[in-house]
């Protein structure tokens, strides 16, 4: 069976010009295959580049050497040389991303934040609103918060808004960066359900889960990243650079 996503020999490094051009190699020759209806969980200790990989796959970080390919019904698309503007449609229709942090316009209500991926595809506002509310209700976000901007919400509440926003678009490829990190058991269970539902409709997922219990319930396979770690990072980094490195 053809995979949905193939990564081959992927490298990633950061050059910190502010620190005299210090070059940090964080990933070396990483390869993976991801199939439809599969949840592949990235494993490895903190700082190993799990988030970095997701960000590269989302176009958020620039990939180094190597190739990333998406396999569509009508052929393969290499992301390495993809012009920036082509990412807009890719993110809208193909690759979804649940990040650890919510980044939205300060004044926009939680409901609208969740609706946005559908509206971007030109969906009917009412339908989008109903779908958003259904998801927020499932994630036990109190109804009184739906019309408020999430900027003032607690970490867990923001995380749930973020999850609803990530899942509402039903992208065929979902990148999940610790979606359950700040959730209680009940809400973790909802996320597990959402992942199972996504899998049932054929979505391929690549995720980071620190919670052992969640990991066991969603993972079809584990991908330990130690093998692809760059030699320079083989020993735990004494102090991580202020920015530019993965935060996991």
């Amino acid at each position: 069976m053809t995979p949905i996503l193939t990564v081959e020999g992927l490298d990633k490094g950061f050059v910190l010009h502010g620190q005299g051009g210090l070059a940090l190699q964080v990933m070396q020759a990483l390869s993976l295959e991801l199939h439809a209806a599969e949840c592949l969980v990235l494993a490895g200790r903190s700082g190993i580049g799990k988030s970095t990989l997701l960000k590269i796959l989302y176009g958020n970080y620039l990939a180094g050497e190597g190739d990333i390919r998406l396999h569509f019904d009508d052929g393969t698309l290499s992301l390495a040389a993809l012009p920036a503007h082509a990412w807009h449609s890719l993110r809208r229709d193909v690759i979804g991303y649940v990040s650890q942090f919510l980044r939205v316009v300060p004044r926009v209500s939680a409901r609208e934040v969740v609706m946005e991926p559908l509206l971007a595809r030109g969906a009917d506002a009412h339908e989008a609103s109903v779908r958003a509310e259904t998801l927020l209700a499932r994630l036990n976000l109190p109804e009184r918060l739906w019309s408020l901007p999430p900027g003032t919400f607690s970490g867990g509440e923001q995380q749930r808004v973020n999850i609803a926003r990530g899942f509402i678009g039903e992208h065929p490829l979902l990148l999940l960066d610790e979606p359950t990190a700040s959730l209680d058991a009940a809400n973790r269970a909802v996320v597990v359900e959402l992942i199972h539902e996504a899998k049932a409709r054929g979505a391929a997922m690549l995720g980071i889960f620190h919670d052992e219990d969640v990991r066991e319930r969603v993972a079809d396979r584990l991908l330990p990243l130690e093998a692809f770690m760059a030699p320079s990072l083989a020993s735990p980094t004494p102090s991580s650079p202020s920015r530019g490195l993965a935060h996991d």
Partner: protein
Amino acid sequence: MKRPELDRPVLLDVQGITRLYGPGKGCEELDLRLHAGEVLGIVGESGSGKSTLLRVLAGLEAPDAGRVVYHRAADDALDLYAIGEARRRALLRLEWGLVHQNPRDGLRMGVSAGANVGERLMALGQRHYGQLRAAGQDWMTQVELDPARIDDAPRTFSGGMQQRLQIARTLVTRPRLVFMDEPTGGLDVSVQARLLDMLRTLVRQLGLSVVLVTHDLAVARLLAHRLLVMRRGRVVEAGLTDQILDDPQHAYTQLLVSSVLTP
């Protein structure tokens, strides 16, 4: 898995633009493409040449070298500085829009809000007062201004309200392409947030393509799909907005990004 349409039509094709006021002052050998439905942010510090570039793109200032080609339709390309002033001005007035940083530059301060919103429609030949008024009230509502204030002069409005009025005045003819020069500059932070939200919604609902010049990276992150980073008249880095801001490659971009204050 179905492949989405990845290539959007190019709306603006800018080739080798140079416009210099002096050595290093202005912009030099610049290429860029704006695709339909895209918000392209141009960021850089004062004097980086981004405002000069905007003026050249917006048809206000002829470049020393290079071409600005507007693809009106698949088989209808206009070379902005070769079509003659009459057609260029008509294009700017009717099909394009320009939002100035200072609303006073984009508004007629001496006439009412309604007349400001209606002017472009009148230039298009709209000659029905009732319909002009209805359009004025509709657009004031869309930009969250009280339509009951349609007969008030813009000078009685606050800075944020003036900016929203300027946006209504610009968008009333449903331009395909809008240029914005620091649209949130000079506004209070709370007012800025509201304006940003409104702009995002309008961009999506009207399918606008936008060239946005700003020195504010936070504004760029929220509004722009793609970024160009300018320094001393040249583009030092270009790419997806979050990629430029989260994984900047060029030394100058890294400096710019790391210098942003976060509360």
